[in-house]
């Protein structure tokens, strides 16, 4: 069971000791090493101190600590849409030129790197949540022990047994490129803990002797989606289609009546059976060995009831083409950028996955600097070696949809639309690298 501690404090650095104590106790009680415990404490301390300095007039700060079996995290909720929060998103591009503000920003950058992940989400017009996560350290994967080749007949069902899950993750890692696998497959103990904590769900295919024959796992994505990985199949080629279909049927039967609209995958394996999913489009996957196209698969779990989306004129043709090809009924409303922005500084959330050289941007606030801000993100991320830069645009927000022109101008290309991935559909852009 998760441990949850919620603290609401004034934006006063005098309270920082309370927060770091909570962070320390939580990390220790969840078995994190001393180094991770310190990283978590320091990250919480620095982020809270930063916010206490920049939001003193904006009411209390609520910090929710969550301890899971595999991770501790702090979600720091604060008010402040009119603040300059550039340091929270353009954290890669700050430079120190001697002034106090830049030094503070730099400290925040370093703080961000203490955490395994940090990201910012927007709760409503004025409220933001800064999420800081530090993972428990797990032993890395070892080569999967050799097993006898599983033989038909096969069966598939939900799996919770940690040993079986770790074995299956190791088998998947040995057989499939890292791009197809969740990062936690590299540390199978973490993967099993994440399943135990409900972060992942899995169906496992077994033969009559309970040898693992295949694995498919999934996690919730947004309010109405499920993202899946797999199917990973561990049987001889002749039996692969049968096991892949068994896993896919078991997966869909399990989630069919859950509180979600769609399932999708940006990393489905080539063993995905034909006829089960629609292809939304593809993403170009850049890796040290070259580039190739990764199809993005999806299916609805129920009849599409239609939706309303906003579209900037710069994107409208693309969207109408997509909806026509997918036979989706959408009311497309026209979104235009405002004549002038209320804010100077725009804000983007940036999530990165170093193993995949992947960075994902999401707009949080518009502003008159949006074009320059995006260009800055691209420049810094590219310099840092992130060759796969994506941008998600929620088309249920007119202000967000109206950013299409600067997004295109910054070198992003619309690649596909993920139905119901946000409040309605989400347009997915990919930065097109110059060759």
């Amino acid at each position, binding site marked *: 069971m998760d441990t949850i501690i919620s603290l609401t404090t004034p934006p006063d650095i005098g309270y920082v000791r309370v927060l770091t104590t909570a962070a320390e106790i939580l990390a220790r009680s969840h078995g994190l090493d001393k180094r991770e415990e310190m990283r978590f404490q320091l990250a919480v301390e620095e982020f809270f101190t930063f916010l206490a300095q920049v939001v003193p007039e904006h009411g209390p700060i609520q910090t929710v600590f969550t301890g899971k079996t595999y991770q501790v995290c702090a979600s720091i909720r604060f008010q402040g849409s009119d603040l300059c929060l550039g340091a929270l998103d353009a954290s890669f591009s700050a430079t120190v030129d001697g002034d106090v503000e830049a030094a503070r920003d730099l400290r925040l950058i370093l703080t961000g790197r203490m955490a395994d992940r940090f990201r910012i989400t927007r709760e409503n017009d004025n409220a933001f949540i800064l999420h800081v996560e530090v993972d428990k350290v797990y032993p890395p994967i070892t080569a999967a022990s050799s097993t006898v080749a599983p033989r038909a007949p096969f069966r598939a069902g939900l799996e919770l047994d940690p040993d079986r899950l770790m074995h299956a993750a190791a088998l998947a890692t040995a057989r499939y490129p890292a791009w197809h696998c969740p990062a936690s497959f590299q540390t199978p103990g973490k993967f099993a803990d994440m399943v135990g904590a409900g972060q992942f769900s899995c169906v496992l295919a077994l033969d009559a002797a309970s040898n693992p024959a295949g694995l498919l796992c999934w996690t919730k994505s947004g309010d109405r989606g499920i993202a899946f990985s797999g199917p990973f199949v561990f049987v001889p080629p002749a039996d692969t289609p049968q096991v892949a279909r068994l896993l896919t*049927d078991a997966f869909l*039967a399990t989630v069919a*009546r859950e*509180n979600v609209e769609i399932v999708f995958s940006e990393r489905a394996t080539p063993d995905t059976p034909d*006829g*089960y999913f629609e292809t939304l489009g593809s993403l170009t996957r850049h890796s040290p060995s070259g580039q190739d196209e990764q199809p993005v698969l999806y299916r609805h779990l129920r009849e*599409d009831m239609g939706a309303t989306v906003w579209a900037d004129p710069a994107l409208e043709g693309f969207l109408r083409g997509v909806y026509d090809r*997918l036979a989706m*009924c959408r009311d497309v409303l026209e979104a235009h950028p405002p004549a002038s922005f209320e804010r100077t500084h725009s804000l983007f959330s940036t999530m990165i996955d170093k193993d995949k050289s992947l960075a994902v941007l999401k707009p949080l606030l518009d502003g008159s600097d949006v074009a320059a801000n995006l260009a800055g993100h691209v420049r810094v991320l590219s310099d840092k070696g992130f060759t796969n830069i994506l941008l998600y645009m929620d088309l249920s927000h007119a202000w967000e949809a109206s950013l299409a022109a600067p997004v295109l101008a910054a070198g992003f290309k619309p690649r596909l639309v993920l139905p119901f991935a946000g409040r309605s559909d989400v347009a997915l852009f990919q930065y097109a690298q110059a060759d």
Partner: protein
Amino acid sequence: MRRLTDLVPPHVLNFESYVPSRPDEILMRQYGVDRLLRLNNNENALGPPPAAREALAAFPPERSAIYPSGDCFSLRQTLGETFGKAPERFLVGNGSCEVITSVIKAFCQRGDSLVTADKTFAVYEWVAAFSGIDARLVPLKDYALDPQAMLDAVTDRTKIVFVCNPNNPTGSWWNKATLERFLEGLAGRAVVVLDEAYREFVESPDFPDGMEVMERHPNVLVFRTFSKMYGLAGLRVGYLCGDLEAVNIVRRTHLVYSVGSLGQLAAKAALEDGGGHVEATRRMVTQAGGYLRNVFDALGFEHISGAGNFIMARVPMPDTLLYRLLMRQGVMIRTMTGFRFPNWIRVTLAREPEMEAFAKALKQTLDKR
């Protein structure tokens, strides 16, 4: 201040509310079509029987100002005469969904369970879920309810076993011997709901008549509806019948005044109608079933049909995609992913022109892909 969601029980908070399809005029606008062929809800394409039509036409509008009979008094009298039972043994509801809810409320509390199939009418499972009752779902065996597995799933906390006979959506059914063995094996440990929504479509003499079975097994409650064979789906009238003691228990949790006057009048008239409507509907269903089986065979599609005015087919694409593609041609089918049959569709068996229109739209859709 507490958030509204803090006040909601977890089993309600986590429940996915059902979103019914939109009205025809909206769907037609969305998909750019000027007609819509509804083959998604197993409605009777022939509509209500003549006597029900006359009752509806004769309804004086001023009667709309008067509350209906709160317990469907006259309709229950007719039900009693039709089935040779006391009217008190019938409870009428706003469709069988309301009766399902009443039975679960009457017999179950937190910690209790019910047993049903994993691929059957979804409302049993839904009502259990949002009532905080554990629904134990037993996999079908060869597309049919598995009596032994269902018996094995019964525990000392099981209060109700739902048996959809014939089963929606597979059309499979238990014969007299199978049902009898099941009831003997259960030995009265739980209430058995025999949902016979489609029983009027069955002509086999080996199909068990729940109205007769309940006389030997007082733990059996039978559900029937006027929505399918009798073509009154828009008026929402369903009912249960059982041993008086069991019915009196359900009565405590059953709402009164939930069935409108029009529904009561039309249902009563439908019962009093001759057998012509039933015979005509059966002929239509038989003919349509034969036609669509040929269509699916020609396309190489696996299909399942049994009793009831519907047929299922496995299609070579996501059922939810085929739904959208057919909607663009004004044909509405039911996707089966939600029934845990991914890539299957269910089609209502209707009149010849409707079946031909469906087949034409299906072939055009497949030709384009």
